[in-house]
């Protein structure tokens, strides 16, 4: 096959952050005295206890201890004899620990001889420049500065690229003021760079706080927002930009807290990857849950990029209200959020379409979705049910269905690209499953979803001629008691959750490479109903099955899929593909959807103001006035 060229303006993700360990030292011929084994890094250690830490000082100390662990781990791996181990993140870790400045200076000079291009090079360079202000040699600092004049940095084309790019440009322009355009790769003066970067960042914060984040709840890309916002909040001299960075971090982490089940970020997600769409733990979000909430092991090697966050993490203090949202799963809650799609260049009446997101959280499982359609052309995950597990590492604790899409039309909607080269390029590069029919990653224009608490109805109306004319349902090997009932439902148990899955068209089972199963249903008009419940609500799985089978359910697939049913929670739902869902006779009014609405996060659309609440604690992030307001209500 001919290789293809295409700008895949997609974050590098884990591959760029791979931690390379140095070669093992040659074993000495004389037996050394038995050494005390080093403690395992947190990603290999037992699951941290999920007890809620009540004392603020203890929480802070534990947070700083985790930060310290990351830095110590990375610093220990760095060996100047093996330059591959001494990358930019190692320099940042060492500088943050204030060790080996001379060695770091030498390494920086080496690294700057061949600067990279783009935001993934820029923010590490910023980290080194700022952490090394009082440690690096003048030659090393000059090398960093020179690199910002010699190589045109690629800005990229995604929201996360631009957050990194413009935060980095802002901070470097601030560090070197009053310098002419000839000294910067942009050809613009320090002041011009600073102004452009500030304008974009303010614009991005403005749309995020009025119509929602585009790359919402990203399992991996969260790090590409968290790091620049931490850097901005730490190093911006302008108090307005500093507090904007701080408020945006709080905003991101509040969103993370409300959407995690024991630290696992589950669906829906604007962007995720093949591995973490089924094994939610395996992505950067777990690093942040571990670091901030302490309730889950971090992903392997702290996600690589986690080192950069850790290098300045002492400058961030998680508000207690966010911590408690993350760790308190005593009460069930529904959270509804407004987000937006990626920018649509073509094929759309709007530049960014609204995403109506629903999340239902319980102690033992969580259900999340948005209304269907394409939020992002490659990596969106539209809905799932995820159950709690004691240790999420290696566990595919989720269930969902999806329509696998491979479509130049969809790609052209979001990319300024030509139709023919894109799919081969996706396959050749970092999205190898994009054109595979058995994938579980991606969203579809031909899927519509409605969720009411722990009921999800997903309907499909796939036009004839579509490249992959089927839907895939994910059935984990960690399910137990999987039963194909004569009623048409499939019952199973996942952890302490009971799950019922109702395919609306004929299907067959296909194996997956890792031992899970794929429910393959090759019918264009199709649908899935999933109903979840806590195991404690029924005597056993059979009793749950009887209750589900007894629910009123009527459906048809022609002319378009439609379902009329009573949910396990007693709601009468009528949902027809392409039409507004009706609950208990009342159409769902999406026009009234708020930016955030739930017990913990609340914001009006267009408000630029988020209220974060837990118990008596309240924090208001107001981007209109650039104020953070904390309050505690009385216990009366």
């Amino acid at each position: 096959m001919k290789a293809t060229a295409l700008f895949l303006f997609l974050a590098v993700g884990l591959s760029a952050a791979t931690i390379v360990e140095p070669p093992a030292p040659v074993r000495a011929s004389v037996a050394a005295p038995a050494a005390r084994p080093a403690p395992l890094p947190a990603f290999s250690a037992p699951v941290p206890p999920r007890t809620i830490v009540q004392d603020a000082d203890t929480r802070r100390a534990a947070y700083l201890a985790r930060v310290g662990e990351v830095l110590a781990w990375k610093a220990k791996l760095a060996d100047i004899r093996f330059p591959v181990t001494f990358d930019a993140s190692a320099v940042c870790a060492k500088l943050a620990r204030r060790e080996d400045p001379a060695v770091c200076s030498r390494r920086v000079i080496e690294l700057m001889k061949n600067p990279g291009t783009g935001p993934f090079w820029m923010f590490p360079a910023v980290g080194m420049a700022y952490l090394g202000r009082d440690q690096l040699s003048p030659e090393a600092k000059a090398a960093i500065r020179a690199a910002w004049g010699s190589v045109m940095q690629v800005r990229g084309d995604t929201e996360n690229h631009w957050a990194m790019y413009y935060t980095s440009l802002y901070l470097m322009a601030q560090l070197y003021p009053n310098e002419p355009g000839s000294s910067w790769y942009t050809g613009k003066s320090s002041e011009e760079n600073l102004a452009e970067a500030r304008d974009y960042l303010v614009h991005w914060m403005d749309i995020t706080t009025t119509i929602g984040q585009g790359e919402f709840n990203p399992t991996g890309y969260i790090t590409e927002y968290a790091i620049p916002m931490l850097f901005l909040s730490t190093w911006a001299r302008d108090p307005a930009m500093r507090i904007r960075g701080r408020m945006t971090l709080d905003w991101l982490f509040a969103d993370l807290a409300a959407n995690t089940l024991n630290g696992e970020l589950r669906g829906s997600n604007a962007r995720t990857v093949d591995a973490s769409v089924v094994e939610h733990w395996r992505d950067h979000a777990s690093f942040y849950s571990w670091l901030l909430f302490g309730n889950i092991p971090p992903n392997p090697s702290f996600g690589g990029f986690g080192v950069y966050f850790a290098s300045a993490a002492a400058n961030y203090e998680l508000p207690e209200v966010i911590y408690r949202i993350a760790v308190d799963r005593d009460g069930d809650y529904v959270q509804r959020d407004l987000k937006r799609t990626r920018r649509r260049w073509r094929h759309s009446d709007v530049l960014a379409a609204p995403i109506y997101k629903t999340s239902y959280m319980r102690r033992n499982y969580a259900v999340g979705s948005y209304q269907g359609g394409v939020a992002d052309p490659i990596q969106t995950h539209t809905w799932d049910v995820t159950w709690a597990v004691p240790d999420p590492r290696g566990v595919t604790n989720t269930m969902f269905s999806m329509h696998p899409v491979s479509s130049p039309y969809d790609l052209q909607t979001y990319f300024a690209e030509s139709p023919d080269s894109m799919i081969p390029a996706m396959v050749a590069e970092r999205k190898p499953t994009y054109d595979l029919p058995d994938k579980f990653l991606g969203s579809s224009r031909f899927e519509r979803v409605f969720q009411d608490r722990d009921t999800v109805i997903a309907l499909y109306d796939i036009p004839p001629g579509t490249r992959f004319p089927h839907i895939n349902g994910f059935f984990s090997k960690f399910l137990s008691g999987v039963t194909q009932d004569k009623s048409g439902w499939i019952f199973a148990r996942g952890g302490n959750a009971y799950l019922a899955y109702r395919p609306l068209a004929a299907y067959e089972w296909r194996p997956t490479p890792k031992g899970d199963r794929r429910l393959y249903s090759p019918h264009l008009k199709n649908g899935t109903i999933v109903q979840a419940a806590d195991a404690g609500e029924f005597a056993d799985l059979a009793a749950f099955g009887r209750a589900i089978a007894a629910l009123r359910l009527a459906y048809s697939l022609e002319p378009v899929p439609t379902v009329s049913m009573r949910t396990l929670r007693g709601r009468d739902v009528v949902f027809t593909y392409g039409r507004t869902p009706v609950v208990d006779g009342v159409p769902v009014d999406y026009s009234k959807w708020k930016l955030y609405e739930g017990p913990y996060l609340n914001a009006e659309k267009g408000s630029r103001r988020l209220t974060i609440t837990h118990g008596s604690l309240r924090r208001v992030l107001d981007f209109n006035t650039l104020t953070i307001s904390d309050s505690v209500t009385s216990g009366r």
Partner: protein
Amino acid sequence: MAPPVRFLLALAAAFPAALANAAIPAHDMVVSVLAGPAFVVGTKSAFESGLFRRGPDGSFHHFGLDFPGTFGISVDPRDSRVFYVASLNGCLITRDGGLTWRIGTSWDMTEPQDVRVDPNSPDTVYIALPDGVAQSKDRGVTWTRRERGLPERGKYTQAIEIDRNRAGRVLAGCETGIYLTENAGRSWRRVLPTSETVTDIEQSPHDPRRWMAATQADGLVQSRDGGLTWRPVAGVPSAKCLYNVAFDPTNPRRIAVGSWTYGVLTTEDGGATWADRNAGLPAGHCVYRVGVDPDSGRLYAGVHQVSLYQSGDFGRTWTPDGLPQSRIYRFNFVPAAR
């Protein structure tokens, strides 16, 4: 660029007969190229991408930025050291032949696909943006959106071309059709609706009233009245994307079209009949761009990630011609830098 002149003069002195066959070309070929495999933001490419200029020995020399996202190119007719490059980062500008560059646009204008200097008013420059059209009247220092009359949605713009004979007339190839302004961008009107993106628009070098446009899903179209009305060109398939059209400046009867699916299509009778000219090109075609040398009439085809190919007989035979593993976004023939 003195060395080529010296080289040719020396050649002529040594081999007088060669002089007749090796007249000094009036134009240099400049191409915008993505070299090597697909570029992913965050990776470091081992290949140099950006602008390449063809030397007198036929080899290509990279100049200016090593940048993976360069698309359209336009040169100031008054000064061939002034390049405007539509790029991933916005409109890049050099005024010294590529030694120094400035990103002329700001964050609010991203990923222009095409750029054109107005030959009637060379301080004026247009860029084709994924969300419309912008214009600079001060050589790229400041930019203003010029979108009155373009649809609120459907103004993804892939191509822009300026009428060299009538000031203020510009044609833009958008998602929803071809749009014309006759007042330098103050207002636009649609002169041809299309079902998908217009990928290229060209004005005939022989007849300024004749224009042709390639489209993604509506075939090849042409206008004989300066772009006011358009008709499909018979004999050119329309089911799949046509990427560009190129007139032969040396022969008014010769026109070429490049297409991923159809490869190279040519006419040598002014468009009455068309021939498939893919013999000698790699199987599968994957032609992303064609161009015609205005001095020699040589036909070039950029075969996606394979090579540049050239033909001295307008597509009957082809030979590889450098730039291996590249994607050629544009052929430009700029006044020779001597």
